[in-house]
């Protein structure tokens, strides 16, 4: 069947001269386009090709934590700042809802940037260069990266990742020399981690009633986006449900060993400050985000969890 029935014996007929000419022209157009497909990688301003490795959120979080611990200069709004050596492997982790760490890179130097997600799909969008690609958990994307423009670039998340998605903005600062650090306010960084007793305690809440603490905890729970992963009606979402949790015994995975712990103030504090230390069995593959709550906020959250029946 065809739209117009071909003439009898068309298959055996000689191809005419003009038809042969079109075939030759089409062939060279195809070759030209194919060559440009490769050439854009060299001369075009398109996403660089990358190497991909297999990993998992827990392994990558361990790499991130070790990397930050080793190279941290200080903190910028609760996010560690690192200044990697040129040519070195650099870890950048996406999680709800931050990019960690803030990177200070030298202009025209090469870096191996390892990027992965700790929880779910995020989008890496480097602005104003407009370099975009998806960041999946379980995969480590290694970009050979050479910053060529001085100044501060922003990393936006361009894949919707929950209630705090719009706040997920990371930073890459490109400098010529260490003198530039002062220009961007990175010469006097706070060296205290959020969650340490000295930080962010703006109000004395020791006199608060239990009711005030619960109300405050509920606000923190919603504002910080805990509700994106934890339900309070008994259904497990990305993380375990929080009602009827306080005082109960839960099975946790601590460095591969399963043990039973009682949910009390200490357990909740540890779970928030060091989410990878004791992971509730069954939730090992959905690593909890580092929330960086202040001691005040943890106290209020604890009161709120305690009140959930």
């Amino acid at each position, binding site marked *: *069947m*065809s*739209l117009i029935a*071909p003439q009898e014996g068309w*298959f055996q007929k000689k191809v005419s001269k003009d038809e042969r000419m079109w075939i030759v022209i089409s062939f060279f157009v195809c070759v030209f386009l194919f060559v440009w497909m490769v050439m854009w990688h060299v001369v075009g301003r398109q996403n660089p090709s990358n190497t*991909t*490795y*297999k*990993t998992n959120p827990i*392994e990558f979080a*361990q*790499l991130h934590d*070790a*990397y930050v611990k*080793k190279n941290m200069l200080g903190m910028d709004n609760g996010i560690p700042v690192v200044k990697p050596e040129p040519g070195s*492997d650099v*870890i950048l982790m996406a999680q709800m809802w931050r990019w960690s760490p803030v990177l200070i890179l030298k202009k025209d130097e090469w870096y191996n940037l*390892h990027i992965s997600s700790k929880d779910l799909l995020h989008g890496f969008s480097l602005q104003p260069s407009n370099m975009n690609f998806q960041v999946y958990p379980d*995969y*480590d994307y290694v970009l050979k990266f050479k910053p060529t423009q001085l100044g501060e670039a922003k990393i936006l998340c361009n894949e919707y990742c929950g209630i705090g998605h719009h706040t997920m903005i990371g930073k890459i600062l490109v400098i010529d020399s260490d003198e530039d650090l002062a220009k961007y306010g990175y010469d006097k960084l706070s060296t205290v981690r959020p969650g340490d007793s000295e930080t962010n305690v703006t109000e004395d809440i020791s006199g608060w009633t239990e009711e005030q603490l619960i109300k405050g905890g509920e606000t923190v729970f919603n504002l910080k986006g805990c509700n994106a992963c934890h339900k309070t009606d008994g259904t497990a979402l990305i993380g375990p449900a929080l009602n009827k949790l306080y005082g109960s015994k839960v099975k946790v995975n601590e460095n591969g060993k399963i043990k039973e712990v009682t949910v009390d103030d200490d357990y909740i504090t540890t779970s928030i400050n060091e989410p990878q230390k004791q992971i509730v069995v069954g939730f090992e593959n959905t690593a909890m985000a580092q929330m960086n709550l202040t001691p005040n906020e943890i106290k209020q959250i604890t009161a709120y969890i305690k009140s959930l029946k």
Partner: protein
Amino acid sequence: MSEQESQPKRASALQVVMDDVMLLLFLGVTIYAVFYLIWGVMEIATVPNIPEAVKQSILK
């Protein structure tokens, strides 16, 4: 008329494909889809783990 001429000529496989627009469309979509899927599965299945040397250089 000889015996050979009286028998209808059998069309070659290529001519059968060329004569059938729907078959051409089917093959054009299917061959591409199948090979693209196989390529994707091969790519995902062959992603290596992070090299131990890279891990140790960060962890140590």
